[in-house]
């Protein structure tokens, strides 16, 4: 379905098996989407269709869920996924300026991935670390009390 070529045949096999175990069980939607996201780094359209078909739910429910939660993405994520918190605490302590700086440094808009597939930039809320605000996460690492000027320094750690 127009997905980019990758060594994903095995991944598809794995997810299809997982979906197959939950035939007709609509409550399996979110766990299956989580598994897909972990496996592929995003939720491919073909997998969404498969989930709808096997769970017996409308495709709009699958797509609606994927677009509702910021944990899921429709596009492949980069090697380093930068999540900038823009929740209330981070927002008032200057998160928008941090996000702006990331966009400038990476040459992409929030929600996108750099052409070399290295960095993805995401705006999320809330990471649950308001005491460290503004907070960002790069993959599993947390960076506290971010400032725009700290952005290049953070990026240097992920090459």
């Amino acid at each position, binding site marked *: 379905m127009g997905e980019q070529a990758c060594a994903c045949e095995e991944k598809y096999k794995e997810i299809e098996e997982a979906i197959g175990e939950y035939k007709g069980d609509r409550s399996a939607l979110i766990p299956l989407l989580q598994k897909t996201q972990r496996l592929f780094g995003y939720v491919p359209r073909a997998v*969404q269709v498969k989930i709808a*078909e096997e769970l017996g739910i409308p495709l*709009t429910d*699958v797509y609606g869920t994927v677009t*509702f939660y910021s944990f899921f993405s429709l596009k492949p994520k980069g090697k380093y996924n930068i999540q900038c918190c823009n929740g209330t605490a981070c927002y008032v302590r200057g998160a928008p300026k941090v996000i702006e700086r990331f966009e400038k440094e990476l040459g992409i808009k929030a929600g996108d991935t750099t052409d070399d597939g290295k960095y993805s930039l995401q705006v999320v809320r809330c990471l649950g670390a308001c005491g460290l605000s503004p907070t960002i996460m790069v993959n599993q690492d947390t960076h506290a009390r971010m400032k725009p000027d700290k952005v290049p320094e953070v990026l240097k750690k992920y090459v």
Partner: protein
Amino acid sequence: MALVTLTIDGKKVEIEEGATVLEAARKAGIDIPTLCFLEDINEIGACRMCVVEVKGTKALQAACVYPVSNGLEVHTNTPLVRASRRLTLELLLSNHPYECPTCIRNLNCELQALAEKLGIREVRVPGIREEFKVDDSTPSIVRDPNKCILCRRCVAVCEQIQGIKAVAPMNRGFKSVVTTAFQQPMADVSCVLCGQCTLVCPVGALYEHDDIDKVWKALADPDKHVIVQTAPATRVTVGEMFGMEPGTISTGKMVAALRRLGFNPVFDTDFAADLTILEEGSELIERLEHGGKLPLITSCSPGWIKFIEHFYPDLLDHLSTCKSPQQMFGAIAKTYYAQKVGVDPSKIVVVSIMPCTAKKFECRRPEMNSSGFQDVDYVLTTREFGRMVKQAGIDWNSLPEEEYDDPLGVSTGAGAIFGATGGVMEAALRTAYELVTGKTLERLDYNEVRGLEGIKEATVDFDGLQVKVAVAHTLSNARKILDRVKAGEVNYHFIEIMACPGGCLGGGGQPIPTNTEIRKKRMAAIYEVDKNMPLRKSHENPAVKMLYEEFLGKPLSHKSHELLHTHYTPRPKY
């Protein structure tokens, strides 16, 4: 069920346990404004228009979902309630285009009416507005998310009544939008174009694709011979466009209005409905006698046809090959009628007045060109027809009652009842009984297939031959019946399915509002039309008999197959 007593605005109200504050208030004659609420279908307390004060609770409560209890004290008109409702409405308006005078729902818009009711003269909050693309990809329905207030009524109808959910809310917060999966154009998803969403949309976010201007143009062209057909269900609903009571029979006025608009002659789809019965009844008898595919399923409702093509393509050979009455009419008009009056069919323009948005799609199907031309050129919904009459400055109330023209305006009561769920079945049984048994049917009314029950079943005695029939309306009921057929749990011979609740009288192109109460009144009117017809069996229609004698030969003849029958196309589910 136990009764509970509560107080609303100082008034004692007694109501069944389990009812909501909104229901109790309505019972007591107290008006609480609602916007997202749609009885039995969308009761989610999302829009917050119906908030009330409930003594002992901290926050305002949504009356449409708050359950009653003994001793509950509710206030519906306090400064806090008024301020909250106003602010909610202002916030909705801040994200709504101010295009009222040019909006298709001008003067029939629930948001507009509420703004007037609450006396909003100023919107204090300047809103951020997302810009969305208008989806006009189908010939039937236009979707304008810019006007959407996210009430979710369309989603609820599509999911619960039609069992499809072609649209649903996507994204969140300011970016929320009701749209299709992957935000594809409506034409590319398994929307069946029934238009039920256009009936329940409180604003102008979902509406019929308007073809009025094309029809005006044809009428103004001296080179064109513009004829019109009116669907069975339109005669009992069109009056509502002019403030008449639901259930008013307006056949004569509708004919008069069409003549004044310039249609000449004015014909009737009821004629083609009778013709459909001859063909479909014969098809049923043939399948019964020669071991054809059973159950035979009706094919009049284009929303239903698109549904089975998308969702049950493996059952397509159960469908009657008969075209719908609208399409039979078009094919006969541009062949038989053209010859009869000596008009070149290329000059004939066939316009349909239909209760249906899916008919606009049906007339453009590539199979519907049996005459060598597009058999039906333009479809106008009941709503568009009503607007056209208004545009022409015709005073509906002072119109006389006029008659349809011959020969394609001649019909029977059997044709008329096509407009109600169960009607096609009843009409078919009236004819099939007499054709099979050779006897005269004593009791014409098949009450067991009438009414608003979702699925109706009956066994009819054809002189020893027990014919098992079923009738379903709405596509969620169609799904239930098809699943049973697939599982081999039922052994019906004949099934009637209509996409819309109540059948065509509740069609997606009918006047707004359309609800259960209104559907019941329209249904009573349809059976009244039938009762008052001198002829009530399709095979007794003299114009249909003449058509067979002069042109078609007999039902299921070669010519009938060429002009009146069709085939179906499997379509993808996603």
